[in-house]
């Protein structure tokens, strides 16, 4: 048949490069997300693996300390203030509430990760299956191409044999082999 073989097109090449770039670029994030998810589900404790928990706790502690100071100064300057049981109770309650709120931050962050696990895993499954579908398409094309090459070889062999037999026949018909 002849003819120049058509290679991969420009946009196809670009799309391929973009795909590799997306996958390379997101590799570290994907690894961390799945590691954290596994840790969160497996141990329920991923504080060391999620730096945002540390910073959120520090921020929470600073904020609650500031709030307590503000409350203390407000109560100290209020009419009839001082170290009254009401002031003591209010400050103690505020401090306890703030401490509890800060202490709950890791659980909240990890809880969000755990509660999002379903969506994360479903999205990952879909992505994985999409990729496998693409892989299968490539494989099907490869199989078809191999079959095409095989057909090409077979047609060459068939044509060759046909030609040889035709030549022998022609030779025989012309009286070269008796008759």
């Amino acid at each position, binding site marked *: 048949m002849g003819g120049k073989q058509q290679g991969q097109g420009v946009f196809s090449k670009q799309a391929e490069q973009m795909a590799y770039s997306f996958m390379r670029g997101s590799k570290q994030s994907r690894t961390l997300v799945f590691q954290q998810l596994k840790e969160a589900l497996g*141990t*329920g404790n991923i504080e060391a693996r999620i730096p945002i928990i540390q910073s959120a706790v520090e921020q929470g502690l600073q904020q609650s300390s500031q709030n307590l100071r503000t409350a203390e100064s407000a109560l100290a300057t209020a009419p009839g203030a001082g170290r009254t049981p009401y002031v003591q109770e209010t400050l103690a*309650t505020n401090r306890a509430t703030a401490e509890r709120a800060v202490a709950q931050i890791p659980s909240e962050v*990890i809880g969000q990760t755990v509660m999002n696990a379903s969506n994360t895993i479903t999205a990952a499954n879909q992505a994985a299956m999409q990729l496998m579908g693409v892989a299968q398409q490539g*494989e099907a094309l490869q199989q078809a191409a191999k079959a*095409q090459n095989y057909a090409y070889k077979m047609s060459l062999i068939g044509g060759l044999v*046909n030609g040889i037999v*035709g030549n022998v026949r022609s030779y025989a018909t012309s009286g070269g082999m008796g008759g």
Partner: protein
Amino acid sequence: MGGKVDTSNRMGVAAGRYGGQIFGQTNAARNMLFKQLASALQTGGGKGFRMPFVQQAVARSRAAGTAAMAGARGGLAGVDASIRNRVLNRMSMTNRQITSQIPTAVASQMIQQAPSTALGQVGPAAAGLATGISGQQAGIEATVSRMKAFSQMMGQIAQAVGSKTEGDFMRSNPGTSGVRTGGGIDPYASYPGRSLDPAVINARATEYDRRAALATGTAMPAQPSQSWFSRFSNMWGGS
């Protein structure tokens, strides 16, 4: 070159590698999630609810409550004992309440998500099966295509070696050497110039008439009633 096509599957292999990579990365988490989801559905967050996150959250909550109580005790030092105890009791109750609600709250959220979590796997599973079927189909098509090509090749060879000479074989002399001499596409058209001896054919035609007369109980015709070609053909076909 000519005819040969590119059979590399670079992108397919890359896609398969990435797909396998993502599946491998999520495999452990997926198994854990479904075990914990089943536990939440079975226990409703009550006795037997197995979820490390809940155990950790309960432990953290208790620790936070204890720390808050310690802080409050210090802050309330010097305050009237009845007031201090009332405050501490209230805080203690609140702590216990918050802590005890954790397993149920988490299980409740998980149960709410359970239908979408469970059914969310059906889509990818169906996609996976569809991919498997497509692969099977592609494999079958490729095999059929190869078989067709092989069959066509054999057909070409058979045509070259046998088909064109079949008519010769039926209608002309195979010859003692086995090399058929008919050679043409239409042996009838090329008959007169061939090596068949008309006397031989005539003798065979007469023999055919004799056999036919014996079989039917009729008399032999005085002259051959059919053309040599058809008689000869009949003789060979019927023998």
